[in-house]
């Protein structure tokens, strides 16, 4: 399985995006990103949990206790209103940067 390094800043964007559908716990976030990227992107624990703490600090998500599919008590992360706004802004920014990069790649 080819391992692709995550571009800096993209991880936060991806986490916020997968949380838009509903609350998830940390392991599920990693799994969802891995699955949705057709198993291209691997999220390392070493970057996932510090990133989650940073997002908590920013107030973009809240953590609530819930029960996992294995029937264990675990923390679920849920997007807040501020997190939704942040996601829209980042998506917008990402689209524009992406388009600009594509434009350069096409014409150069």
């Amino acid at each position: 399985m080819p391992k692709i390094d995550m571009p800096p800043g993209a991880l936060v964007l991806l986490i916020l995006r997968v949380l838009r559908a509903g609350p998830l716990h940390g392991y599920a976030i990693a799994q969802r990103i891995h699955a949705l990227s057709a198993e291209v992107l691997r999220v390392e624990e070493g970057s996932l949990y510090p990133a989650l703490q940073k997002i908590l600090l920013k107030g973009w998500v809240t953590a609530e206790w819930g029960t996992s599919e294995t029937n264990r008590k675990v923390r679920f992360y849920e997007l807040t209103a501020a997190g939704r706004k942040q996601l829209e802004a980042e998506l917008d920014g990402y689209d524009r940067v992406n388009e600009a990069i594509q434009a350069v790649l096409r014409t150069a």
Partner: protein
Amino acid sequence: MSDLLRRLRYLLGRGRHDAELADELEFHREMASRQGRANVGNLLRLREESRDAWGWTWIDRLGQDLRYATRMLAKSPGFTLTAVAMLALGIGVNVAAFGFFNLIFLSALPVRDPDSLLSFQRRAPQAYASDLPYPVMDFYREHTRTLSAVLALHSTDLTLENSSKPAKAHFVTDNYFTELGGAAQMGRLLEAGTTAPVVVLSYGFWQRHLGGDPQAVGKTLRLNQHPVVVVGVAVPGFSGLNLNQVDVWLPIARQPEFVSGSELLTSYSGDANGVQMWGRLKPGLTPKAVEDEMSGLAAELRKRYPKEIWENETLASEPGGYVKLNGGGQRGTGTPVSGREKLFPILVLVSSLVLLILAVACGNLGSLLLARGVAREREIAIRVSVGAGSGRLVRQLFTESLLLAILGSTAGLALGAGVLRYLLIFTDAPEWLNPAPDWRVIGFALGMGFAAAMLFGLTPALQVARQQHRRTVARQVLIGAQVAASCILLIVAGLLVRALTHAVAMHPGFEYQQAVTIDTDLGRYGYSPGRAKVYLETLANRVREIPGVQSVSMVSSAPLGRRTSIIGMVVDGRRVDLHSNHVDGKYFETMKIPLLRGRVFEPEEKNAVIVSESFARFRWPNEDPLGKLIDPSNNRQRVVGIAGSARTGALKDPDAAELYSPIEAEEWPSLLLIARTSGRPEELLAPVAALAKSQDPLVFPALETMKESFRRKLEPAERSAAAISVLGLTALALACLGIVGLVTYAVSQRTKEIGIRMALGARPGDVLRSVLRQFSVPVIAGLLVGVGGAAALSQLLRRELYGISHLDPTAYLGAVGVFVVTATLAALWPARQALRVDPLGALRHE
């Protein structure tokens, strides 16, 4: 909710958050292993990295450092105690000095809204006065639109029945207590419209004079033999508006009843006693607006009283809630020398001296830390070898110093506050001055502690962490600095003690031991010059008839008295303070001042002066002064006689000289009598008081033997000599402690070498010399720097030394001698250890 709030909330629940994170990571591991992935990595490390996001890791590290530092300090209690004691001593002395300064100059008076209070002074381009005539104050009070209230105070002494000491009375406007927010301990205070003859007592007076009688309200006191009803006692925390002790407050409207003939309330003349004036600024206005308004009002009043109000007069304002040394009664020509200017050299001197103590203490601390660093070389080497970075090591060592600084500051704060409390009791300060440290003093103590930790903790920390060995140089600089600092302190103390013994032993140029001063202060009772002349001449003649009295004369300023009139004079760039006195012809005989040349004044003589020999030498160094005019443009001051120098006005000032003029007709009401007896001067007081009473029962002269005046004059000098001596001895003790420590250390380091030397036949003297030689250079250098520093610093003291030079060899030799002897003993005592070294044992060791 901002990031910061979330961060703080995280900090508060840090333990819980950490447990949750650990649980979450554990869950992650479980899930991963379920799916066949076994290696999730180091969970502990992951936890730490995740925690970093919140930015609180430094607290953990600081906590670690602090715990470690606490353990290290607790492990060597001897070192810790010594270091904290050193710091506490150094900081405590500074805290006491700063606390005093803070009390007097920086903190506000404990009155309501001190910031809007202004105190006023009359000012014109060529004159100033701290007091205003009452009617002038009244005019300003009527017309001001910038002040919401005007307060006035007139202070005077009133006789008190059954008491030899007069009561210090403040006659105040009826709004005095309400404006200042004063509260009553019992009864009530003066209120607006109080017109009855009532008196409010100060707490101290109530305790001292009435023994704290709970039934005091309603009792009658007799002040100047005038009955007056006590309506209340003020709380001990009521300060009034300056530092002066007050016994009683009375309504100013009743003042003439207590002082018969007083024209206080009606006279516009600035020569009579006046009132001090304060005002409360209306909200939103500046002091400048008040001053502008007052200039206009003064100009208006000058149209009606052109003689009494000066040209271009204005009222200069100062922040009234802060100026506590304003006692009133100053007046003169030119611009006033502010109290702050006069105090500045004293402040510089005191702060230098107390900082020197801190320097000595810190020097010791530095030596201690260095020695400890050496002892810890092993421990530090181990920590380096297991991977501690030098940054982490420096931080660790520095944390230890910081901890010491905090302990030292706290102990210093307690010590300083205690010293200050004692100082205030010792100097009879008013009871409302609160010596408890406020935020400024606490900040100062902590700042001092941290500065000391920086200076003397960081350098050894860096040296130790770098494993560098430039300790010997550092040590020698430290010991030199300590010697210099304590030497300066000892010399200054020596100078003050010398000056004091000199002052007691010297002949001041006049004989005061058998003379008394009789201050009738007739002006206060509204005596006209003519009546005053009759009164004084009659009283003088009757005093002359008392058995034993040799001579009586009249003066405007009594020798060693409270009042003195000084003319600052500059001739060819040299400055002299000329103490001017108006005297009659018998003055020189009464004070036993020799008349060197010429003659005394004849009765009713005008246009003549007598100068002291010191002034003659100053003004006409190579000429005959007799017949000369002091100022060629003023033919009223022709020299008719030269008297011996007699520093009647300023005992301690070597630059003082005297100028005597004949008595002028209009000044009779302010003259004093002085008398000389062949017996004990104390025995003269009662008969004089009786004579005065029989002559006018309403006049109460203040009587004092000049011996008593002399003692009073020396009191401040005695106090400062005592205080500086304590500082000097403290510094000496500190420096000796430092020397003992150093020599002990040097001996322990060189046990082996000494053993070899002794085995090879070295004599005890040689051994001692080899141990002590390394200290001789820094000690000698320190002594030289100390003597130089003392010579420079003591210039500030020149006019306080009663005529001895600030380079007085006795004081310098004495101080240096005391230092050398003590320091040598301090060095020899531990050096004896070197002689006890057993050569064989030392060689076998290791």
